[in-house]
C-alpha cells in the first residue's frame, strides 16, 4: 500500500525544493504537505517523500522520529490536542482533559471507536494569553470552558454525521 501524493501536490513539493540550496531542507515542508493530504505521516509517507526529494530515506525517518507534530499513525477525523503546559494548567486545562475523558469518553492517545476523534496532550501552543487552549486539526480554540468543549464536540459529531465535509 504505497502512499502517493496527488499530481498537484507533487508539483508543489518540486516547487518547494527550489526555495532551498539543498533538497534535504524540503523534508519538513514535504511532510507538512503529506500531512495536509491525509492527516498523518507514516512509513509509506516517508518513503514517498524520500523518493520525491531524492534523499536517503533515513534522513526522512530521522526527522519524522524527532518532530512530534507529525502523527505516525491515523488520528481520526478530528485530532484534538490540549495544551497541558504551565499557563493552561494554571487556568484549568486538567479539568478540561478530565472532562474530555469522563464525559465524552475520548481517551488519551487512542482513536475513538467511530474513528472520529484522537486526543493527546501537547506542550505549549503559544497562545497562553487565552488559556486553556486546544487545537483541533489546524484550528486553535481558545478561552475554553467546559460548556464550550461540549458544544464543540457535539458540533463535530453532528457535522460528520450529516456527511458534510467528508
Amino acid at each position: 500500500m504505497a502512499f502517493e501524493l496527488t499530481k498537484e501536490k507533487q508539483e508543489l513539493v518540486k516547487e518547494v525544493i527550489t526555495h532551498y540550496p539543498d533538497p534535504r531542507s524540503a523534508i519538513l515542508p514535504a511532510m507538512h504537505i503529506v500531512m495536509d493530504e491525509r492527516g498523518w505521516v507514516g512509513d509509506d509517507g516517508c518513503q514517498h517523500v524520500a523518493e520525491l526529494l531524492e534523499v536517503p530515506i533515513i534522513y526522512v525517518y530521522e526527522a519524522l522520529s524527532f518532530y512530534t507534530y507529525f502523527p505516525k499513525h491515523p488520528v481520526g477525523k478530528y485530532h484534538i490536542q490540549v495544551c497541558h503546559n504551565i499557563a493552561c494548567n494554571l487556568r484549568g486545562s486538567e479539568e478540561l482533559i478530565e472532562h474530555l475523558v469522563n464525559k465524552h469518553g475520548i481517551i488519551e492517545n487512542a482513536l475513538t471507536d467511530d474513528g472520529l476523534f484522537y486526543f493527546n496532550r501537547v506542550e505549549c501552543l503559544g497562545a497562553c494569553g487565552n488559556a486553556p487552549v486546544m487545537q483541533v486539526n489546524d484550528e486553535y480554540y481558545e478561552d475554553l470552558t467546559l460548556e464550550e468543549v461540549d458544544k464543540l464536540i457535539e458540533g463535530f459529531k453532528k457535522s460528520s454525521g450529516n456527511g458534510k465535509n467528508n
Partner: protein
Amino acid sequence: MALEKIVFKGIDIPGNTDLKVYEEHGGYEQWKKILKDKITPEEVIEIVKKSGLRGRGGAGFPTGLKWSFVPQNTKKEKYLLCNCDESEPGTFKDREIIEKSPHQLIEGMLIAAYAFQGGVSYIYFRGEFVKGWKICEAALAQAREAGYIGENILGSGWNHQVWTHRGAGAYICGEETALINSMEGKRGEPRIKPPFPAVEGFYKSPTIVNNVETLTAVPKILENGPEWYHQWGTERSTGTKLWSCCGHISNPGVYEVPMGYSMKKFFEEELGGVWKDRALKAVIPGGSSTPAMTPEEFFACKMDYESIAEHGSMLGSGGMIVMDDQTCLVEVAEVLAQFYHHESCGQCTPCREGTGWVHRIIQDIERGQAQPDVKNVLFTVFDEIFGNTICPLGDSIVMPIKSLMDKWPEEFDYYIKEGKSKITGKARRPKKKEMPDNWRREKPFNYPKTEDYYTDFSKTAHSN
C-alpha cells in the same frame, strides 16, 4: 489602558495584514528610501547599533553588533533566518505580530538582510501556527507582486527572496543553531559554538538568526532615528519591549512597555492585578525558563534587562506568568519539569537524563512516595546539569525549579513530609504500587535457544 503601542502600533490597526492599509500608514517607506537614496549597508548597521536594539528572543544580544559579524569577503550566499518558533511557555508575542502586522516584519527582514548583504531569507514558523503562516504567505505574495521582494527590487539592482519554512513541534528549534539544523532538514539538535552562525551557519554559509520582535522593530527605528528609540528605557536597555502576560491576572494579553517602566505600576494599572481578588504568590517574569520571583522582588524591579537581573531573575522573552496564592508550586515544578523532559533533544547526557530524573523525582513527591532527603538529590542533579550542556535548555530546567525550591522551601518540605500538597490538601498523583517482596524471579529463567532468536528476529523485522 494607559499604555499605547508605539513601535508595534501596527498590531492595533485593523486590516493591517493588507498591503494597502500598511502602505497608508507609512509602510515600506523605509525600504524604498534605502534603495532610492542608496543608503549604504554600513549606515543601516550604524543606525541600529546606535539605537541599542537588543535581540528580543531571550538572550538580549545587541542586534547591530550581530549583523556586523557577518564576513563580507566571502562568495557564499548569506542568509537571514527569522525565528518565529515561539514555543517558550508563557510567550505569545510573535504570534500577535505575524497575525496582525506581517508586513512590518517583512520590511524589517528586507532591511536587515540588506544591512549585511544577505540574498535569501526564511521565516521559520512553529508548525502549530498555521493561521499566522497563511497570513504571512498572503502578505509575502502581495509584497512580491508590488515588487518589494524579488529580482532587481524597485529598479535598484538588489535581489532578495523571502521564503517561509514550517517547523514541527520542537521547542528546541528556537535555539539558533538548532533552528539552522532544522532548516537543513535534520533533527533540531543545537551545534557547538564557535563557529558562530554569523560565520558558519545554514549550509556553512554566514547566517543571521533574529527574533520576530527584533526584526519588526527595525523599520520604525530607521523611520524615527536612533535618538527617538533612546527616549525610552535605560542606558543599556533601550526602547520598548513586548510583554506577553498570562496566568492568574485579570487582563492577559500582549503589551508594549517602555524599558525601565515600573513593574508595580504596570501590574496594577494594565494587568488589573491578580484575578478574583486573590493575593500574588509568585511570578515567572520572562518565559518559563527564567527563575521565579517573590512578590517583593517582583514589585521592586523595573522592566528592563538589568533591573530584573538584579532582583534575581531574567527578562528572557518577556513572557510573564503570574500565579495566585492558591497555586501549588510543586505542581508548577512538575509541569515545568515534564515540559523540559519532553523537549530535551537528547544530545547531551546531563540534559537528556537529568531532565528525566528531575521529572520523575518531582512525580514521586506528588505521589507522596519521595525519600526524605530528596531535595538534596534534586540539588545535586541541578548542579550536574547546569552549565554542562551545549545549549541553554539544560539550564532552563534548573533555573525555574531551583528558584521555586529556594524561595518556597516550606511547600516542598510539607509535600515530602506529609505526602500531600500544602495548598490543595491532597496528593496530585495516585501512589505507585509497591513491589511485592518476592519480586525477584524465584525460578531460573529459561532463555530461548539460539535458533529461536534467529526465527524471532526475522519475524519482528521492521515492516509496515
